[in-house]
């Protein structure tokens, strides 16, 4: 059996941990540049705010009435990354093996326990995470990962499940699949739905009742795997999909660098190098570290810049990685003579199985075409014929607009909660 643990409205839930006054009120989190809505609480969903909707449009539509006042936050990834690792760390204590799938989702292996004990056990885990971290989660239990995902959706939808829904009999499986839109099945999506609808497949149950050849012919191997998983045969191994390694590049400088431009230029080179390596092995990265420190032997305290950046979506696009890196670096920048600096890309996944993010509103195709063109030119004219020009950026401005950013309550001592006393 597998458990899929999914954090409910994760980004909004993170903001609410430190703003209990917003419990029960409409809250949204906006994408980079404060452009679109990427996370909504249930109250915001009830107001009709759509996932991915441009924020200025939603605001205009809702007007200024009292009951439609929505609190919006810019994406605060250091906060979300920290709370995510707390949730994952608790989950890891309740399973012999945890596969983190995204910032707010993980698969847990749970063959260590009799099936009838699973639901009450994981109900306690839901309560523990809510109390310890403040994040509401839903857990789906089932014999395959695809079914566990479906179960978790039911757990989220119906409060009577106490956060945990289990598919452990054929009757339950049938009932769950019959009420489940095929488009919402893990690995199906909108494109596949276009092919399935004309063939009369509307629900997950319809799909599971067709012949395996139907699934394979229409949707190839991944479609067949989904068909098998819906029928209870465990066949998707996500540890095959995720390559657990890292790519890094660092250097010790002869003379300390205390000029920000010079240090940024070095780090941009490192990041470009790592991103190219990442693309060559067809991987995407979800998280990276950028660091710099002064000499360990100099007088006085060693000065350290260390930022862990969790990306909202996995990427291998150089410009995106550089953008996030510079934003993170500038947050902690102080002019000291840095002797060593570097980047480490972590949490790598295969580009072929990238999880499509609902709220990924980047011009993805254009970026990828551009990236391919740059790689081609560089392979023809030398590694660094085309580079990202950091010097054209207005260096005093943050790279993305984040006007409604909440404090980094858990990752920056200057930003911690204040208790009035």
């Amino acid at each position, binding site marked *: 059996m597998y458990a899929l643990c999914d954090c409910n409205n994760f980004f909004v839930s993170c903001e609410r941990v430190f703003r*209990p*006054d917003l419990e029960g009120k409409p809250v949204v989190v906006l994408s980079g540049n404060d452009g679109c809505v990427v996370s909504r609480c249930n109250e915001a969903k009830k107001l009709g705010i759509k996932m991915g909707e441009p924020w200025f449009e939603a605001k205009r539509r809702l007007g200024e009435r009292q009951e439609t006042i929505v609190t919006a936050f810019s994406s605060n990834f250091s906060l979300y990354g920290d709370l995510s690792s*707390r*949730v994952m*760390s*608790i989950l890891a204590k309740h399973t012999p093996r945890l596969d983190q799938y995204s910032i707010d989702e993980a698969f847990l292996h749970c063959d260590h326990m009799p099936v009838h004990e699973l639901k009450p056990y994981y109900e306690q885990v839901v309560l*523990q995470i809510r*109390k*310890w*971290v*403040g994040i509401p989660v839903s857990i789906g239990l089932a014999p395959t990962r695809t079914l566990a995902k479906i179960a978790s959706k039911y757990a989220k939808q119906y409060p009577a499940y106490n956060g945990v829904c289990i598919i452990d009999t054929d009757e339950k499986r049938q009932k769950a699949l019959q009420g489940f839109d095929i488009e919402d099945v893990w690995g199906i999506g909108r494109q596949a739905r276009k092919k399935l609808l004309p063939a009369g497949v509307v629900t997950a149950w319809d799909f599971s009742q067709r012949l395996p050849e139907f699934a394979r012919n229409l949707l190839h191997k991944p479609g067949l795997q989904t068909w098998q998983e819906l029928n209870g045969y465990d066949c998707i191994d996500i540890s095959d999909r995720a390559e657990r390694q890292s790519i890094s590049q660092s250097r010790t400088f002869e003379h300390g660098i205390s000029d920000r431009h010079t240090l940024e230029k070095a780090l941009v080179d490192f990041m470009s190098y790592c991103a190219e390596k990442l693309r060559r092995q067809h991987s995407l990265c979800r998280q990276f570290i950028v660091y710099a420190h002064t000499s*360990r032997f100099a007088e006085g*305290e*060693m000065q*350290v810049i260390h930022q862990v950046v969790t990306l909202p979506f996995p990427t291998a696009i150089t410009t995106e990685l550089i953008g996030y890196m510079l934003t993170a670096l500038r947050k902690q920048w102080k002019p000291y003579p840095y002797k060593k600096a570097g980047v480490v890309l972590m949490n790598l996944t295969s580009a072929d199985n990238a999880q499509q993010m609902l709220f990924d509103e980047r011009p993805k195709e254009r970026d990828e075409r551009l990236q391919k063109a740059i790689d081609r030119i560089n392979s023809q004219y030398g590694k660094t014929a085309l580079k990202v020009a950091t010097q054209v950026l207005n260096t005093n401005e943050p790279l993305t607009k984040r006007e409604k950013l909440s404090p980094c*309550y*858990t990752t920056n*001592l200057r930003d*911690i*909660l*204040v*208790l*009035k*006393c």
Partner: protein
Amino acid sequence: MKLTDISTAHDMGIELEIADGLQAGFPSPAQDHAGETIDLAREMVRHPESTFYARISGNSMIEAGIHDGDIVVIDRSLEAQNGNYVAACIDGEFTIKEYQFDAKNQCAWLIPHNKDFQKLRVTADNQFCIWGVITHCVHKL
């Protein structure tokens, strides 16, 4: 208080190897204890997943030794008991006080530790939650 990371000392070329290649002589009794050190943060944080920090602003807890500007350690995993100091959120404002549940009067009390302050009665009319239990206070001299 500054914390300095020394875990990567080896990549700076410092060799701190204990000479266990030497055959002669008595093996160092310290060898089994290499790497042991006192880590105050670890002593103060029993549950890293549920531990948060907060800064004190104000003087209502001064007689309990909690001063303006201090940093407190909050553990959300603990169940608040009568007499605990808690981080609570009342009507949208975070505060720190001693917690007392009053079963007879169906209310809770938030008790300051400074005679110039009044204790606070919490009833069902308040938006109220106990956010976590205070376990330590870090005071800079």
